[in-house]
């Protein structure tokens, strides 16, 4: 039954399936509606994906390192609220570094708990999801945040500005993706992240400081979250304190869709970017052919399950699971 060509095609689909699916979607949507491939539409999609995308970049590090981060959503809402609040008290020049400092401190705390104390990352970040949410609500006094003088500030630059016609969120997302991709694939640190996630014990036996590596993955994640918070705040110049709720699982879905394994040790920044873009373009494509935005969730559901399923089916060499 298992003839070679079939296997070959199956293997290719399993390995590059997500890319194939992406191309098929793009072609399909482009045929259905010409507007889909118009440059301003593509810019629009990437721009609106940028906030979640930036967070996904950070979570990619955490996941490759063999952990989870469920706190990114509420951490982002913390960053957003904090930077908006400080904007009016300290002014934007000080507010931004202050917000980055506070968010990184939260990331460092999580990194300490998961890396050095070796606590289960799912529960730690679940706890932090709740704790940071509480922190945000306390900070804002349960109120929504708004910048008082929306016209007179340059703060909108990050979310609304552009460089040579390219919207700033795209520039930031792209730059960050490029830098982090180099860090992950080319530096000793990146290599260690793969080793720690792939086999933590072997990494320890090879003299890799596992705790420190995990700690830094969370720090990177927090940095990305702070950047996402900045984009969000700068785009809207005001925010509800529930912004970001539920983002943690959506971001995780993007990373998994890109092909990172929850067991750690595999995945790349490029793949995550593809995962992010699939989310964005499916939503946009469905809108353009006249469907509501929430239909994308159902489509994404199918795509995620199919992607992961094909991946593990290729590894075990059979489509259906051996579970009796």
């Amino acid at each position, binding site marked *: 039954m298992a003839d070679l060509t079939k296997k070959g095609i199956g293997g290719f689909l399993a390995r590059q399936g997500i890319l194939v699916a992406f191309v098929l979607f793009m072609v399909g949507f482009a045929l259905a509606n010409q507007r889909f491939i118009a440059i301003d539409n593509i810019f629009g999609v990437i721009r609106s994906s940028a906030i979640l995308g930036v967070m996904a970049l950070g979570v990619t590090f955490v996941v490759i390192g063999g952990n989870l981060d*469920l706190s990114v959503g509420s951490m982002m809402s913390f960053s957003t609220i904090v930077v908006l609040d400080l904007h009016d008290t300290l002014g934007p020049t000080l507010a931004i570094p202050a917000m980055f400092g506070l968010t990184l401190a939260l990331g460092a705390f999580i990194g300490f*708990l998961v890396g050095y*104390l*070796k*606590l*289960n990352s*799912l*529960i*730690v970040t*679940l*706890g*932090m*999801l*709740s*704790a*940071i*949410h*509480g*922190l945000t*609500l*306390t900070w804002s006094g*349960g109120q929504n945040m708004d910048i008082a003088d929306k016209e007179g500030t340059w703060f909108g630059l990050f979310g609304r500005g552009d460089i040579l016609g390219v919207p700033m969120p795209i520039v930031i997302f792209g730059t960050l993706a490029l830098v982090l991709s180099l860090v992950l694939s080319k530096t000793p640190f990146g290599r260690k992240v793969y080793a720690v996630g792939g086999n*933590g*014990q072997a990494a*320890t*036996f090879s003299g890799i400081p*596992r705790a420190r590596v995990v700690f830094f993955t969370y720090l990177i994640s927090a940095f990305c979250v702070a950047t996402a918070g900045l984009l969000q705040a700068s785009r809207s110049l005001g925010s509800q304190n529930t912004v970001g*709720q*539920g983002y943690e*699982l*959506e971001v*995780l*879905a993007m990373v*998994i869709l890109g092909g990172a394994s*929850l067991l750690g040790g595999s995945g790349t920044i490029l793949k995550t970017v593809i995962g992010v873009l699939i989310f964005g373009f499916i939503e946009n494509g469905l809108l353009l052919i006249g469907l*509501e935005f*929430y*239909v*994308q*969730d*159902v489509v*994404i*559901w*199918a795509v*995620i*399950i199919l992607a*992961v*399923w094909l991946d*593990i*089916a290729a590894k*075990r060499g059979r489509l*259906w*699971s*051996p*579970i*009796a």
Partner: protein
Amino acid sequence: MFTERRKDLLKQGAIWGFIVLELAFFSIAGNYLSVTDTAFMDFDNMLLLLKQSAPIGIIALGMTIIMINGNIDLSVGATFALAAIVMLDSMTWPFMQALGDWAIPLAWGFALLTGVVLGAINGLIVWKTGVDAFIVTLGSMLGFRGLVFMYNGEQPTSHLNWTLVDFAEAQFLGLHTASWFLLAVALILWLVMTRTVHGRNAYAIGNNRDAAVNAGIRVGPHFLLNFMLIGFLAALSAVVFYSESGSVNPNDGMLYELWAITAVVLGGTKLAGGYGSIVSTLGGVIAIQLLRKGLGHIGADTETVNLVIGLILIAVLFLDRQLNRKGKEELKT
């Protein structure tokens, strides 16, 4: 062996000890800080607390079984919302309206069926594809939520039926309907987990899946059944809650999965599976609700609740690990 036993008892009793601690703290602190004049330990207050624990509590009880299996279900919040919509919306269907109050049990039936079907979808995917339950239910969390929105757009779905409200607000022996549901579900699931073959198999599978498979336990159908069960319970929770409120927003139930997991973990169930108890989860649920109410009672902002619960969850994890340390000669990896 004796110390093992003691450790076990300690683990089982820890959550109840914590609850007693909370009660004592809030009663005493309440004397000095309370914003109202009523005592915290007031009987009515406690009964109300049980009622308020019901929606998440019923889901958390089901989550316990899923987690004892070594699985997880992130889609319960979306299932909860969809079941609620089905229940409220079905009562506006013409043929249902013709039935008068007989539409109520039928509407409940539709809602519960919705839950079971959604659970079965999760279970079948986990069984047949072998994809980890975390990923499967992460996907269906998005997917089910999409279905919720597709049903009625971004509009809330409302239907107030006074018979239904009366039923939901009824009290029997001082307990509200919702409390009765919570306690009944807890009792039944406790019996299932301690007395039946299905329950014992659930522990065996979570504890050592290969051993269970080798012993001829059919793991796939077992998972399917448990996912249907938690789907049913998520729907039941919706039925209980929305019978009273009569209106559901498409975003309702968001993050319920995380609250339920928090309660289960506070109750001491192992994330890796194989260990945990229904009674302790009930304790976890009550402890969280107690904290919520208690902090309000002593005049703390309700926002602090999230902060405190999150930190307590991490503290519990830390303590659990300290208790299980093997001593100094342990391999440092």
